[in-house]
């Protein structure tokens, strides 16, 4: 009796029952299989798109690197020129010789050279890091015209030097010669400790950069004063 009633109901509403079951099956399949796969497919698509961009960047960088490698000596020469202006390390010895040489050429005598402890950013970990600074305070004796000449020579000296300030006192005892104290700043920039991501674009050397290298190469190198003969001694504690 009960079964025949169910059969009757099924026959009457078979369409609705089948549709209901199909909807349930679709929902189950959609929820359990389709949605996770769809989400996975979308994330893979994103990864593919990122990969394609990376591939384009790498291909472009590879082309540029291959171009530079054709004549690496040109790049080395540019680097050497720039290194003379902004060395990898402080190069204090060369700096002091250079300042003395600059003073001599300007008819000034460097009476005292003092290194200031103000070294800023001694190690730049990336190439974007700022240049480090070495401060040297120099006391010169000479005329104002000579100091003026020194200032102009500093502007065209190969190693980049900047003046922090100038103070001078005229000394009547020395026949109009002034004693001036000039704190100077020399710069250095170390090589990067890591090159970053391989796909990071290679920096472009603009025409201004090339002009700057050209200008720097025409600046005068002041590194040593004449010939230095170091004889040394056998015992460092006995005069």
């Amino acid at each position, binding site marked *: 009796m009960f079964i025949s009633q169910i059969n009757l109901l099924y026959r009457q509403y078979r*369409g*609705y029952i*089948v549709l209901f079951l199909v909807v349930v099956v679709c929902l189950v399949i959609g929820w359990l299989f389709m949605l996770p796969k769809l989400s996975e497919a979308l994330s893979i698509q994103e990864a593919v798109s990122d*990969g394609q961009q990376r*591939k384009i960047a790498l291909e472009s960088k590879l082309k540029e690197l291959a171009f530079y490698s054709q004549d690496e000596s040109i790049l080395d020469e540019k680097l050497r020129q720039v290194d003379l202006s902004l060395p990898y390390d402080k190069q204090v010895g060369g700096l002091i010789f250079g300042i003395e040489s600059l003073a001599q050429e300007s008819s000034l005598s460097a009476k005292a050279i003092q290194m200031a402890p103000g070294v800023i950013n001694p190690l730049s970990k990336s190439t974007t890091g700022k240049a480090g600074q070495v401060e040297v305070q120099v006391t010169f004796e000479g005329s104002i015209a000579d100091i*003026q000449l020194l200032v102009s020579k500093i502007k065209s000296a190969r190693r*980049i030097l900047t003046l922090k300030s100038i103070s001078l006192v005229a000394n009547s005892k020395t026949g109009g010669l*002034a004693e001036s104290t000039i704190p100077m700043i020399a*710069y250095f920039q170390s090589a990067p400790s890591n090159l970053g991501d391989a796909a990071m674009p290679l920096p472009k050397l603009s025409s201004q*950069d090339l002009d700057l290298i050209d200008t720097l190469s025409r600046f005068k190198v002041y590194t040593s004063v004449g010939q230095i003969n170091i004889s040394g001694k056998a015992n460092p504690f006995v005069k």
Partner: protein
Amino acid sequence: MPIDINLLPTSYNLQEVRVKKNKQLERLSIIALSLMIFLVAGVFLAWNIQSRRLVQIKAEVESLEEQVNGYKDIDGKVQILKAKLTSITTIVNRDPKFETSLGILSGLLSSSQVFLDDLSISENQKVTFGASAPTSSEASMFFDLFKSDSQSKQIFADATLDAITGAKDGSYKFSISASIKK
């Protein structure tokens, strides 16, 4: 005469309508199920294609990275060259006009009877100098010259003259301070 308003179909007709409706719903179910199958197949196909593409791209990128790493040396050289050039440009562009200031001052002093005693050009672009003049009017004339000279006007601003005082040697000492224009 009563009017029959029963619009319902007869029992035979009702049965026929039900069968028809069931058939329609079954057809709809089949269509929905087929669509779902197509959709699932499509998603799996897309996933499969993208997965293969990802594997391929990964292999290509790895190979390119290896090639780029082969040029590490050149990469480093170009990076440091650019970084140094950028630093040099920044340093060189910060010209504090020391040379021009000294030149102008030197020129003004040599065209007058005034002698320089001391001079200071500070980091914050301030010029202060003390000088001696044979007369007080010579001192004030020098100050006027310092303020009115065409070259001096181009570089110095806000010039002030401190009190002129007589020295033991008969000269007049004074000091002038000004700021250097940027």
